[in-house]
């Protein structure tokens, strides 16, 4: 994996210009995630309409990987059904956490460019920060701040693989 290329071609763009940062007119659900090992944070607001993600707003501070991953996530889920967002979430986790060698292209689209992060074991959590906020939102945990460490989808034993 070419770290410079990964950053230059994908991450820095979203890090410097995160997408979907404009405040929503209407917020159906808001959830936050904090990575306790560094204090970095993502706040995600969704405007839901009849099972569809009509609008999404991202706020956050943190490393380039966490913020870029969250920014790309907003693009992937905007306009999608809640069901599909859940599928994208699982596919992304499969790629980054389990290191799925054949990630689900159809669901992931541009997110595939983040595949290399799965090899940066110490940064896997960074890439997941926004997604854990999404998970909390999908579970309708309005206003809640989840802790990335508490995230059961991140088995420590996977680190031993």
């Amino acid at each position: 994996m070419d770290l410079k290329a990964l950053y230059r071609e994908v991450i820095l763009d979203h890090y410097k210009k995160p997408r979907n940062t404009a405040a929503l007119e209407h917020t159906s659900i808001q959830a936050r995630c904090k990575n306790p090992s560094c204090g970095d944070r993502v706040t995600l607001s969704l405007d839901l309409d009849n099972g569809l993600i009509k609008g999404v707003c991202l706020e956050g501070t943190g490393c380039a990987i966490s913020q870029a991953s969250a920014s790309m996530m907003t693009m992937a889920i905007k306009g999608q059904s809640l069901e599909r967002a859940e599928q994208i979430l699982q596919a992304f986790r499969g790629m980054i956490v389990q290191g799925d060698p054949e990630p689900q292209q159809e669901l992931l689209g541009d997110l595939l460019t983040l595949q290399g992060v799965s090899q940066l074991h110490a940064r896997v959590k960074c890439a997941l920060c926004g997604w854990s906020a999404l998970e909390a939102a999908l579970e309708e945990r309005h206003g809640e701040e989840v802790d990335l460490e508490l995230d059961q989808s991140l088995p420590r034993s996977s680190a031993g693989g």
Partner: protein
Amino acid sequence: MDRQLLERTDTGMPTRAVALDIDKIRADFPALKRRVGDFHLAYLDNTAATMKPRQVIEAISEFYSLRPANVHRGIHLLSEESTDAFEAARAKVATLLNAARADEIVFTRNTTEAINMAAFCLAERLKPGDEVLCTALEHHADLIPWQVLRDRKGIELRFAAVRPDGRLDLEDWYSQLSERTKIAAFAMVSNVSGSENPVAEMCAAVRRVGAISLVDAAQGVPHMPVDVQAIGCDLLACSAYKMLAPFGIGALYGRYSLLEQLPPYQTGGSMISSVSLEQTYFAPPPSRFEAGTPAVGDAVGWAAAIDYLQGVGMQALHERELELSRYLHERLSEVPGLKMLGEYYPGKPGIASFGLDCAHPHDIAQFLNEEGVAVRAGHHCAEPLHRALGFDSTVRASLYLYNTEAEVDQLIHALHTVREIFA
């Protein structure tokens, strides 16, 4: 012991169903090649600590040669590798014990720390009048922490009696287990009498009264297949150095849903979620219970030891030990004036504690050492058990996968020498 014993098999299976290649195994252990004076070393102090195979020694050397960095997911290569090795060791221990997930394994220094941690973390659930049920055959490590808890929380500490044959008096144990019992702690195998407790059955009974079970498996995990889910225990403690691994590491297994509810034990780095001068939020298990920099190299050595043991096969190892245990007890029974602490029964693990009528255990051990035989003398950190069975101290011989019939013979020969000198 009657002659018939030799003809029976201990496990119902044909003897040596899976024969271990003991010569090949012995070749892996550099310390077994040592001599004591003119004698080969016959190492029969395995209950205290086992020898280490070169595979374990090499794994430690390799770790410190290549990736001696701190863990906790540092971003640089060596720290990545060190963290991966440490978490792989956790996963390996989880597999050995058949834990539901790696996060149920908390690394400790040893069994003692595991039990101290459990007693400390369970303390806040107890109120005066609650009971902790212990037994009279525990190692001090599974006794004194409960005394401390008793004095700290004003609870009752009860002890199930030991029978004259060295086994737990199960009837007494059941009669003391009640709705008032909040914690029941007991050994899987006594480190003195060598007798084994029916831990699965006991854990089920503990569950029925709504109490928490803690199994001191220091002498269980090294010697037989152990499945925490099949046993149904809430907590289980063991030490690595008793199973071919380095000193300095052990584990507290805990059912995750229980661990989650427990407060931290030691506090400091890497067990926190956030810290201010005023307040601290703690991380989830197992991090919550692992303050500070862990014994990474020792964990790596433990993983290599588990690989070695699983290569031999825990069931095969266990059967071989039972076979040699039978031989050990039989030969001991032929020594005049020898008094066993507890009785042999088919299937009894390879731990034999005894005295001689003519000599003090420490003098016996001294002369055994002169003939190359390594045993322990003393109360083996189980004073109450010794007193209950009328001993001040004993000599203890104990077996592991590399021991041979010839080493048992060497012990017996040396005991005859002691008799000649003292009688």
